[in-house]
């Protein structure tokens, strides 16, 4: 009964962890804007977690550079299953204009499965929110709810 309650409430408040995998800061600013009162993603229950160990949704921006690859892998390994990986911007999906650079090891799909892709360079906060709402649906499915 108690476990059921926890499961139900956890589905309503997914916690995010944001990884910057060598992003140009464009996408990061939009993610932050998404959490500010003007856009207020918290009304969907999202909350920025301080550590990947508490996170349900991992938001990745940036093309995964050689410097960040190890860190991205470590963060992904620390997040408990079931987790949903959201790629924000064109960078994690395809490396964007950094394609073929000597210091880029992406795209992200070489390292892990990507559940939701949000396009744009940088995507508008509304688009990021739409992606996060999509991610919650996938999270519920992964947990075996509805």
């Amino acid at each position, binding site marked *: 009964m108690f476990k059921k309650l926890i499961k139900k409430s956890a589905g309503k408040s997914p916690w995010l962890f944001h990884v910057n995998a060598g992003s140009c800061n464009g996408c990061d600013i939009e993610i932050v804007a998404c959490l500010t*009162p*003007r856009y207020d993603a918290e009304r969907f229950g999202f909350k920025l977690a301080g550590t990947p160990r508490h996170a349900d949704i991992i938001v990745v921006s940036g093309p995964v550079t050689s410097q960040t690859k190890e860190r991205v892998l470590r963060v992904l390994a620390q997040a408990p299953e079931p987790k949903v990986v959201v790629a924000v911007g064109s960078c994690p999906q395809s490396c964007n204009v950094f394609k073929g650079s000597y210091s880029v090891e992406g795209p992200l799909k070489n390292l892990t499965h990507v559940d939701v*892709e949000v396009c744009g360079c940088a995507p*508008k906060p*509304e688009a990021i929110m*739409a992606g996060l709402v999509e991610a919650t649906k996938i999270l519920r499915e992964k947990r075996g709810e509805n």
Partner: protein
Amino acid sequence: MVLPYLEEAIKNLFKRPATRVSFPKEIPPAAPDYRGRISYDPTLCVNCGMCMRVCAPAAITKTVERNEDGDDVITLSFDLGSCTYCRTCADFCARKAIKLTEDYVMVATNPADLIVSGTFVKKKPVIPPKPPVQPLPKAEA
């Protein structure tokens, strides 16, 4: 004043909420001239390849197949997950076949949904039959 923030706190109680965006109930329009989802009109395209040449992240790919009539079936695919939305392709397209629309909610769980493509057929050129070679008039001695 003893409580310097009291005035501000009371004001805030009666202010309208700071949240301006009632997403997902309504999707607010993008700024004018926003560069969003690409639309490609294959009926206008003349296959000059200028768009592919200027695209920095190489988001545009072209495939050419020959059908049974000997015509070329040309497909241009724009990968929205690779595009940096610079609009250079649209600016360079002499036929205005590419447009960047104001639709900015591009969310997908399957990367194949992020490909915008269009196909057109380039007819095999009709080569007119050669006129029969006229025998040269005999040179008179």
